[in-house]
């Protein structure tokens, strides 16, 4: 193997890292511009975000606890993307997964602890997967793009959960929430950090990310899934059941989002309440795309986005600017990363851009 070839392979492996770091650079530049418009010092804004995310052990604990649902929804989006699908419905799947996990834990509280704890999480994941089913059915039988159907399903899921938690499944108070889940199903605190505690949930999500990465890049099944994205026609001719793999992967993706909700219930809130998710489902899209949808690198973008998420209230407290600033920053990160994957232009050959010439290895290395 020539040196150039080896370099190319290493560069391909590091692609997610490069894409995220360059998006982050754009994001920091944009932060400075934004700070100017908001009338705060540019370094004040960046340091406020940093302090909100990692300044002190309480902030770090909050960030790490937010990392669990973000990592899982990010995995959900990236797994679906590896099969050539785009799952925007994490929000709804997460909400219903959380609701069903909470309800299962409450109604099945007489089960032995060894069964109850895993079953609660599994039920959440199953319901999340089930909520992804109509979308993939519409995609395959009616040729409706899954982005449209999952977005519509989000609204239905949120209203459905809202009705259930205010009506038949609520605890009867005016708080629009379910009763607390039995202690046997609650994940214990493992690690005291400041006044807050962390459970094993972030670790579990991280292990799941590793498993998914190995499944996608080191097994035959994963190879078939990725083939469905890269070239569905070639995959079909090679005897890969493209539709079946896409269905399975999309259901898996929904299950991951449902799992995010279930873990949120058993590890943090211990109950379900109305307006459960503060937008974790949509953050998952940013998390996944920041690292080119590679599950093994998702932890990196999760740390970034979870930091932004937990800094939003701090921005309001320390600088008096709206927490929505975080959404703007996320959008800029997403645009910056989307611009890196350049779509091919049909028909005419284009001159490489200056940027491309500077930072690109030759496609065919000289022998």
């Amino acid at each position, binding site marked *: 193997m020539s040196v150039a070839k080896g370099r190319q392979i290493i560069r391909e492996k590091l692609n997610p890292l490069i894409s995220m770091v360059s998006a982050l650079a754009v994001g920091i530049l944009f932060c400075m511009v934004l700070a100017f418009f*908001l009338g705060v010092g540019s370094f004040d804004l960046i340091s406020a975000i940093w302090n909100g995310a990692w300044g002190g052990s309480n902030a770090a604990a909050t960030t790490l606890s937010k990392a669990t649902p973000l990592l899982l929804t990010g995995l959900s989006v990236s797994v679906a993307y590896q099969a050539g699908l*785009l799952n*925007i419905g994490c929000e709804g799947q997460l909400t219903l997964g959380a609701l069903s996990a909470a309800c299962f834990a409450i109604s099945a509280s007489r089960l032995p602890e060894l069964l109850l704890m895993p079953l609660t999480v599994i039920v959440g994941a199953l319901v999340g997967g089930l909520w992804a089913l*109509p979308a993939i*059915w*519409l995609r395959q039988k*009616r*040729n*409706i*793009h899954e*982005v*449209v*159907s999952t*977005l*519509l*399903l989000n*609204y*239905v899921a949120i*209203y*459905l959960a*809202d*009705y259930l938690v*205010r*009506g038949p499944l609520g605890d009867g108070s005016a708080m629009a929430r379910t009763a607390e889940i039995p202690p046997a199903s609650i994940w214990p605190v493992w690690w005291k950090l400041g006044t807050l505690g962390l459970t094993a949930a972030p670790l579990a999500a991280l292990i799941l990310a590793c498993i998914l990465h190995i499944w996608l890049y080191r097994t035959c099944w994963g190879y078939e899934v990725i083939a469905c994205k890269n070239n569905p026609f070639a995959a079909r001719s090679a005897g890969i059941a493209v539709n079946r793999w896409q269905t399975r992967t999309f259901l898996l993706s929904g299950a991951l989002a449902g799992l995010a909700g279930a873990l949120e219930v058993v590890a943090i809130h211990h109950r379900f309440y109305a307006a459960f998710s503060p937008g974790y489902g*949509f953050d998952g*899209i*940013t998390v996944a*795309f920041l690292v080119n949808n590679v599950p093994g690198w998702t932890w990196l973008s999760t740390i970034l986005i979870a930091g932004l998420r937990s800094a939003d209230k701090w921005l309001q407290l320390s600088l008096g*600017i*709206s*927490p*929505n*600033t*975080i*959404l*703007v*920053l*996320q*959008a*800029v990160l*997403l*645009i910056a990363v*989307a*611009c890196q*994957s*350049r*779509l*091919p*232009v*049909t*028909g*005419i050959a284009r001159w490489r851009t200056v940027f491309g010439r500077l930072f690109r290895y030759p496609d065919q290395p000289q022998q």
Partner: protein
Amino acid sequence: MASLQLISLTIGKTAPILLACMGGLISELAGVINFALEGMMLTGAFLAVWLTFVCGSPWIGLMGGALGGMFIGFLHSLVCLKLRANQIVSSIALNLLAAGVTGVLLNQIFQVYGTSPSVGKLPTLRQFKPESLPFIGNWIATAAGDLSILAPLAILLSFLTMAFFKWSVWGLHIRACGENPLAARTAGLSVTLIRFSAVIVGGALAGMGGAYLSIGELSAFVEHITQGRGYLAIAALILGRWKPFGILLAALLFGLSEASSEWLAVTWAGLPYQLFLALPYLVCLAVLMGQVGNKQAPSSLGRL
């Protein structure tokens, strides 16, 4: 009388979806996927309120709404056509951007969270003295007097769009770019320029749809005022099979389901109100599920 009110309510609910739909149609017929309608509507709704607040005239506000949509459209076409990003990802990012920017600006300009102070509304039909019209004047005054003037304008605009695509050369050029950009380029059209302007003009229409929500129906901007209407508009686009008349029917269906959900919420007050809120989305999903046959999207949709 009741049914007449339902009709006028339907028209009122259809108008924003229809405007957004037509915006999406222009952009998608030019071959650019436009899921950013939600963001365009949201930005349009906010800018309409802001400019009305500053200038005092809701008509300038309406123009501001169009400008807001055009701005998001400009960003979308810049990111998709010049920087060649994935068009769906770009749309999602722009929806996020619009949600964030409107929230931030609401706080920066009005120093409030959630709802802006109320501003002047666009005139209703009643203020134009429809009684003086022959034949249907009285009917309009009684049944549809409370409708914003933008509602009939929206329907007029949709017919104009229809005529534009059916009879004008520009309409043909736009469709050529969406069907086969290579052929269009060979025939001497500047595909990128046409797509750019199509997305921006579409943005103007969608922004006006947003302005309808903020200064036509209400008289203030509320965070997330669009409530997924941009997504309903995309669904209507699919349902109407990228044909202007089909889209008009699809938008009317969604308008009817929104109107009847308000109607039913009063009639059947015993049922949970979330059911009525979810009704438009449920109807949309049901109709998409029932739809069979060949859907002819522009063949180069999403490709450069």
